[in-house]
């Protein structure tokens, strides 16, 4: 299977990465060589195989319900692009 330029634009849209038509064309060609490589795994019969999501077969450790964090917003916001009154500022959100 191969991706069309429209596929590329659709996933770029999902990933919030601006892409123009020329870039979509170029990217499509590159991605298709990669997907040709990926396609080799499609031939494997995995019907009876359980997917492996983690390297170790261990279960989630649980944290006690204790407040351990202190207010560090000044330090965190020192590296923010735009803040005011303790809030992060972004272009107007329209709901």
């Amino acid at each position, binding site marked *: 299977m191969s*991706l069309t330029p429209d*596929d*590329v634009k*659709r*996933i*770029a849209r*999902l*990933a*919030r*990465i*601006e*892409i123009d038509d020329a870039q979509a064309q170029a*990217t499509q060609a*590159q*991605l298709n*060589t*990669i*997907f040709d*490589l*990926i*396609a*080799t*795994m*499609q031939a*494997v019969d*995995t019907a009876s*195989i*359980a*997917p*492996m*999501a*983690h*390297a*170790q077969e*261990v279960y*989630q*450790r649980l*944290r006690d319900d204790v407040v351990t964090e202190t207010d*560090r917003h000044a*330090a*965190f916001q*020192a*590296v*923010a*692009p*735009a803040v005011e009154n303790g809030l*992060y500022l*972004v*272009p*107007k*959100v*329209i709901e």
Partner: protein
Amino acid sequence: MPDASLSALAAQLAAKQVSSRELARQYLDRIAALNPAINAFITVDAEKTLLEAAAADARIAAGQAGPLTGVPIAHKDIFCTDGWLTTCGSKMLHNFVAPYDAHVIQRFKAAGMPSLGKTNMDEFAMGSSNETSYFGAVKNPWNTACVPGGSSGGAAACVAARMAPAATGTDTGGSIRQPAALCGITGLKPTYGLVSRYGMIAFASSLDQAGPMAPSAEDCALLLNVMTGFDPNDSTSLEREKEDYTRDLDQPLAGLRVGLPREFFAEGLNSEVAAAVEAAVTELKKLGATTVEISLANSKLAIPVYYVLAPAEASSNLSRFDGVRYGYRAPDYASLDDMYCKTRAQGFGAEVKRRILIGAYVLSHGYYDAYYLQAQKIRRLIADDFNQAFKACDIILGPTAPGTAFKLGEKSDDPVEMYLNDLYTIPANLAGLPGMSLPCGFDAKGLPIGLQLVGNYFSEAKMLNVAHQYQRATDWHSRQPEDLK
């Protein structure tokens, strides 16, 4: 000094033959002299380094020194370091001064090891040549026209050029082992879960693992003692008894069963690399090892599987870089959505964007089962192959990379060609197994060749034992680039 092992440096410090400040100053001077040509460091801050060195001297004077207190180390710029610029090799974080320390950084600080600076890397650890860094490519100290490998290319190059006695790296698909091989040093990727990932900027969470990079296996063992250990802030960190990874270094290798996967010696392997690896096998036999041929039949699928799983996780992990709370924000935009799209288009480099797109695609509606789920299933087949193999052998041996260092720009236009460089390293990441690379020779052009060892889960001490015994019998690891000496 440039030849000294970590234990030798520690001994000099303990004997007060040198202070940590003097040591740091010597390495900083060497960085100042060599880094313009190598570009191994993104950030050097002599003042901060010397302050940390002074603190280490105070600890030594107070008799509170640990085994490596005062020995400096360089950190890959993927580890958040409080008060230090932490870029992950990306324009997206070109201005990000981390407000906290990664767990690994905390451990080295607690051990009293001053930081020499933050090393260059492929952007967000995505690359095998260090050419995707926003801060420019790193040059291989053995031949500055060649790449150092990646993604921990700055770490490998700075150790190879002895700009630092040791460095931290991270390995998602070979990012410690492949540059270690291409730069002629020793590097180890531990069992997944041994080293906390907290504060290490995520690429592919289920594969990422930090590890040590240094000239020798003995150095790596000492560093591993510092780096490993349970961290409650990382859910995938394993609760295990603390080990001393140096404990078995001097054990003889008699009776060691070395597994040679036939798939790792097949088509695609450079003949000079093959010859060097076979010579290493002969050397190990001399030391008492026996060999057994094994098969890792599904390892040929490791690259396709990896290029589904790693981009899928990365596409999600990198969503937080949106220009809202830190890092780069595009200067001009028409709306919130436009701000997102422009920030991410401008802030990420081509390879990172390529992988984000692959990841978004394989997770998207209608493709998940065919790509993501299928890849996770084959991941299990690959892990099962190793489990089978370890019934017949104690350690697996093969080449680290199919060839030696290639020319800058040689593969940068062909992603697939570049990806194939990690053919032999990726399987261990998928299985979560420990792997290491150590120098085993040079090709006709004088470029280093890497030997890879893959051990069973938690067998780091055994791997280091094998590597150390090999390094006692050979001197590949102590060779240095001629014109940099």
